[in-house]
């Protein structure tokens, strides 16, 4: 099985539908980390151990209870070229760590791409569920159901006192990382964002840019996730995050209303200028593209721009990243040509989005 089917289309099935609160919440993700009792963690494991881990976990895919999630395709990382790895990272189906550093790494991806199971990443097993919009509970329920099935077949490293044992001390206990990706342009524009984000980080949650640690938030996208995995149960973790996200949604909505009532002309001007630049620019770098796309998304949400779907913007978010850009580009690429091609692609897509 090749990964081509997953990199041919920039939009995962889940991105074509919309979830709750989809004007503000782009996606909800739950990841569960597990390890097999009998083998050292991937950091120290021999290749032999890692092969055995892969075999044991791959066998679980035969469990008929997994059929409800559609066909699940096992892909070995060693079978992928660099480009396809990069594109899977850009679609959030695998982590950069699995793509670049794993030995005997593999990923099992469901047909609709909402379930991706990473093998021999930092931990032996990482079950990830990715849903559009605000669907944390749904993502958790699916991830834990898949976890139960794996648990029936293999011995997970578990300790009565410490819970599920993970390679990194920051994941021990539940092994659960729940994250919500939010688009918060109005809180950024009204300069409330820092106050809110620092409050969030004081209650055991973390905020990151869309590509994880070290990257800045591009295009007003913020990923909010739980930091605590030990001493809180799964329901508490999900509920905490849910209630904080709900509050942030409330703040963002209020800020949007305020923008419309107090500075409608200025917001309209900003949004339409960005729309104009994206529609006609001959060159655009990735940072500006992300910011302009954020403005246009806000314009659509506020009813200032019509005729473009949010799905079209989701697609552009993925397509304008380097791996996908390169893949779509025929011929050799001169320096600076990436920006030219990015601009052309956006013009075409927005043209298609217009009636």
């Amino acid at each position, binding site marked *: 099985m090749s990964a081509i089917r997953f990199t041919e289309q920039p939009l995962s099935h889940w991105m074509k539908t919309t979830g709750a609160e989809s004007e503000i919440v782009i996606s909800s993700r739950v990841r569960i980390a597990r*390890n097999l*009792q009998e*083998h*050292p*963690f991937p*950091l*120290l494991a021999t290749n032999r151990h890692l092969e055995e881990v892969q075999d044991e976990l791959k066998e679980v895919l035969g469990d008929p209870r997994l059929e409800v999630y559609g066909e699940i395709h096992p892909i070995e990382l060693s079978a992928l070229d660099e480009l396809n790895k990069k594109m899977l990272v850009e679609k959030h189906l695998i982590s950069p760590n699995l793509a670049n550093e794993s030995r005997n790494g593999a990923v099992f991806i469901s047909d609709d791409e909402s379930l991706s199971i990473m093998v021999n990443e*930092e931990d032996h097993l990482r079950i990830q569920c990715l849903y559009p919009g605000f669907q944390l509970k749904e993502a958790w329920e699916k991830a*834990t159901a898949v*976890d*139960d099935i794996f*648990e*029936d077949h293999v*011995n*997970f*490293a*578990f*300790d*009565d*006192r*410490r*819970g*599920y*044992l*993970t*390679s*990194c*001390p*920051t994941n*021990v*206990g*539940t092994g*659960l990382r729940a994250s919500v990706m939010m688009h918060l342009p109005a809180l950024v524009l009204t300069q409330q964002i820092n106050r809110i984000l620092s409050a969030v980080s004081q209650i*055991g949650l*973390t905020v990151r840019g869309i590509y994880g640690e070290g990257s800045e938030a591009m295009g007003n996208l913020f990923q909010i996730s739980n*930091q*605590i*995995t*030990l*001493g*809180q*149960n*799964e329901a508490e*973790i999900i509920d905490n995050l849910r209630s904080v996200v709900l509050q942030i949604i409330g703040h963002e909505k209020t800020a949007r209303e305020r923008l419309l009532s107090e500075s409608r002309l200025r917001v309209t001007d900003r949004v339409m200028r960005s729309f104009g630049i994206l529609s006609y620019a001959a060159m655009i770098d990735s940072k500006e593209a992300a910011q302009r796309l954020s403005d246009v998304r806000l314009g659509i949400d506020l009813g200032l721009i019509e005729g473009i779907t949010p799905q079209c913007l989701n697609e552009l978010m993925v397509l304008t990243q380097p791996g996908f850009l390169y893949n779509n580009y025929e011929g050799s690429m001169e320096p600076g040509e990436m920006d030219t091609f990015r601009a052309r692609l956006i013009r075409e897509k927005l043209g298609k989005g217009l009636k």
Partner: protein
Amino acid sequence: MLCQECGKRPASLHFSKIVNGDKSEYHLCETCAREKGELIPGTSGGFSIHNLLSGLLNFETVEQGKRAASPENLRCEVCGMTYSQFSKLGRFGCSSCYKYFNDRLDPLFKRVHGNTVHTGKVPVRVGGEIRTKRQIEDLKRRLQESISQEEFEAAAQLRDQIRELERQISE
């Protein structure tokens, strides 16, 4: 010498920590060293796990700590990872590391998670009894609630369920 934290118990652990060339000494009783591990100056601030590890766990013993093995000798006998490797890498080598390093993990978990004990999901296969105990705890909480709300019929039912589960465990 008395513990510099509580001033009551005798100090049994003596540490020195060097931050940017400044040497500070700590004389703590075991209880305070564990519970207030996160209060040791120079360890707060910064989210990086590596800061935490070097701050919390990488202190050297000046006098021989009598109770805790010195970090150099501490080693996981299953995968062979030493404690000092662990504190540099910030990653465990295998699930047994948790056992061998156990005495030194509470302050770390306290700082990272604010907690030291798991209260979440338990695997069905290994967790029959643990699972039942959690269930009993949960029922007892609900029993107290029912009593305080004077819902005695519900309380009686809960009490029966608790007895049944406790009987199962004792068998």
